[in-house]
């Protein structure tokens, strides 16, 4: 009798647990749809009033008179992201090759925790560092050196801070990419009389190219959505930037800076939610393509 009861409670527990699992799973996999839906629900008011294209390509941002043009913010975002990527990409690629092909054990022993810690530093601390070091450097040294009077709060400052934030992220993916290439492939190339560097240049980079592209794609989407650190150093002037030393106002910063007034101006909340939706779509798109490339390349190799 007691044996039967144990069996019952065991299978009951199994069932309860199974259904809780299923509920959680369904919740998790429907998250993207729920998020997109929620944001669309709030931003649809504005979308109905203005239409997507006129919002994205309009330059006028005057919330008080009901004009919401996202163009300056989108351009700023692109500027900052591209600056960060251009700065970070060569460093990441070179370091990844160094760490996977040449580095001695002690270098790895140092660099592994360094990358981990860099990846774990909260963005607000990157922002603090940006204000303490990067902004004064650009404003006082680089600016006078180039004969310009700049405040330092600029696209360039945002780009530098962002570059350092995405480096550990991109680097980790690149290290994986290079480690997943079988050693036998470099052995084959070496035994044909190629030097180490020729092997890297002609064989490893070529073999890893899809992965490298994907890593940069993921890094780019990470940079595109980063908020606080950029907001703190980028200047936040809603004008279309025309150079690296000009201040910019990227989309995430726009959302974060204006949540206070959000509910006091009509349609303003809707506009900010639309910015979030734009971010969501762009980042999701970049991520999806990059992940797809990685997966397709995994299958082929």
């Amino acid at each position, binding site marked *: 009798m007691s044996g039967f009861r144990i069996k019952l409670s065991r299978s009951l527990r199994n069932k309860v647990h199974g259904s809780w699992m299923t509920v959680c799973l369904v919740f998790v996999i429907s998250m993207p749809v729920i998020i997109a839906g929620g944001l669309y629900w709030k931003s649809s008011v504005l979308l109905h009033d203005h239409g997507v294209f006129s919002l994205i390509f309009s330059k006028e941002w005057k919330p008080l008179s009901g004009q919401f043009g996202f163009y300056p913010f989108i351009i700023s975002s692109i500027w900052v992201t591209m600056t960060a990527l251009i700065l970070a990409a060569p*460093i990441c690629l070179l370091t990844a090759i160094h760490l996977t092909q040449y580095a001695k054990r002690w270098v790895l022993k140092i660099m592994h925790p360094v990358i981990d810690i860099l990846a774990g530093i909260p963005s607000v601390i990157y922002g603090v560092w940006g204000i303490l070091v990067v902004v004064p450097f650009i404003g006082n040294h680089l600016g006078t050196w180039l004969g310009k009077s700049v405040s330092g709060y600029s696209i360039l400052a945002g780009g530098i801070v962002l570059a350092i934030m995405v480096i550990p992220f991109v680097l980790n993916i690149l290290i994986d990419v290079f480690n997943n290439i079988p050693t036998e492939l470099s052995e084959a190339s070496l035994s044909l009389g190629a030097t180490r560097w020729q092997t890297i240049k002609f064989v490893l980079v070529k073999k890893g190219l899809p992965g490298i592209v994907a890593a940069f794609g993921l890094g780019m989407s990470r940079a595109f959505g980063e908020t606080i650190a950029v907001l703190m150093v980028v200047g936040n002037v809603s004008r279309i930037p025309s150079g690296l030393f000009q201040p910019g106002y990227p989309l995430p910063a726009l959302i974060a800076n204006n949540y206070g007034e959000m509910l006091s101006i009509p349609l303003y909340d809707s506009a900010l939610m639309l910015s*979030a939706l734009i971010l969501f779509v762009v980042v999701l798109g970049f991520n999806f393509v990059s992940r797809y490339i990685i997966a397709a390349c995994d299958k082929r190799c």
Partner: protein
Amino acid sequence: MKKFLKAEEIFFRVLMFLSTTLIGTVLFLIVFSVIKNGLPYLSWEMISEVPSGGYYFGKEGGILNAIVGTVYLSLGSTLLAFFVGLPVALMMNVHLVRYQRFVNGIRLILDLLWGIPSIVYGAFGFTLMVYLGIRASLLAGIITVTIFIIPIMIRAMDEALKTAPRGLLEAALSLGSTRSEISYRVFFKQCIPGMVTAILLSFGRAAGDVASVLFTAGFTDAIPTSINQPAATLPLAIFFQLSSPISEVRHRAYAAAVVLFGIILVISLLTRIISGKYKKNRINF
């Protein structure tokens, strides 16, 4: 030709070495400049008192409210995320092993969710608040941050569970265990170090993020006594104080940054110690 090749290789090796050193130097620079600017202003008063009347004009007080708020928020959301995340991670690796394509699909969705910026989660949290009719509060913050860290936690757990040998499941099944027993008694136990790593990782993310709590958790000088009250968090406190025109207040932001940095470093160190024990048989890099 040979000489040119040699020169090219040396040139790039120097470049590689420099970029590796640069990354190390940058970390050192960040640590150094934050500590140099913050440590002189860090005092016992700062971390043991809540802001008093004129705190934001440079008067007495501390950031205890933010420290406690961060701990409440991170603990609460990590706990919630654990209850949702663990079953999903276990389900992917115990119940759904036969459906690898489906599991890989879930992994893709989780990776995509991981990639979504926290500000988007913040905005979504805000719409959720509006929809459910709750005010900016600890509760709203916890819900938002939970959604934000769930994918991180599941993927980290998933990576740990993936390393469990396949034979384990078959052996346990052949002994007559139910799948839920296998999940917790075998797989969870087998991968406990990985699980702890996942939890610490998520906790660190929760503690360090600003953008997701900006809309949802509110900000207050008092230590919250219920989850319906707003709560301050450390990153947010740093952010607010930095925008102050008074230099005294800005210095306190640097000091607060040192505190936050300390918390994150401790978590990172713990993670390394635990995962170091667990990765003993694995080669990194």
